[in-house]
């Protein structure tokens, strides 16, 4: 759930989503869910000529399973916080493993 929460903090930022079929779509992150499905607003497709079917779309819903990379604005990512959260989650997971 960590990355779900992480992406929630990036809502309303400009991101570029690269799909497994090599399309890159740039747009404002509007929402994200537990499967990391993504909704982008005001999209522009990098290399639009190659993907003519996207030209009449303004916002897209991308299924999480087809995403390869998400390029994030560096300024919007608090790496220290992310590291802390990762350690906390790892600690919780190992504590739970010990209990059972």
């Amino acid at each position, binding site marked *: 759930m960590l990355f*779900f929460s992480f992406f*929630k903090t990036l809502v309303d930022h400009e991101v570029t989503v690269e*799909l*497994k*079929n090599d399309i890159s779509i740039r747009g404002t992150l509007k*929402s*994200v*869910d*537990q*499967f990391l*499905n993504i*909704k982008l607003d005001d*999209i522009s497709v990098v290399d*639009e*000529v190659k993907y*003519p*079917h*996207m*030209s*009449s*779309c*303004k*916002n*897209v*819903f*991308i*299924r999480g*399973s*087809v995403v390869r990379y998400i390029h994030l604005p560096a300024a919007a990512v608090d790496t220290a916080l992310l590291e802390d959260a990762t350690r906390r989650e790892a600690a919780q997971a190992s504590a739970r493993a010990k209990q059972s």
Partner: protein
Amino acid sequence: MESLSIHDPPPAGEQPVKHQPVPPMVPQLPPQMFTTAAQLLDLTDKKLMVSLRDGKKIIGVLRSWDQFANLVLQDTIERIFVQNLYADIPRGIYIVRGENVLLLGEIDLDKDDYIPEAFQEASVDRVFTLQKKEAEDRKRKEKARSKKLRAYGFEGEHMGEAII
């Protein structure tokens, strides 16, 4: 034992299915409910372009969906782009299993049916033949590539499957 035939009246209390008017669907979930359902809710009854894993592009009205992004699309057309040509094929109702969905794009009604100038409409047959040829070429190329890669110990990301 009770023996029933199809001509018997239905048991009391159970009413024959009547066609009831469907209440209009109103978006109810707030956008801060970060679920697949909430994301798809405001795409309901909109004209969408759905890109599928096998490269098909379907344009139709989204009527129903669930948490896996299984979709029901109404009045669909399939639009095939090949080289600088395109063709539209009417397809009717589409039910898509979620795993085959790449993305859904809401069609901007201001830019509805805008197709870049570089593309011209052609007959379905012509586009179909060209597309088939293109797919075969790609498959051949992909096969040769993955053969070479395998020699080095690499496995491709989507073996043999073209996702466009």
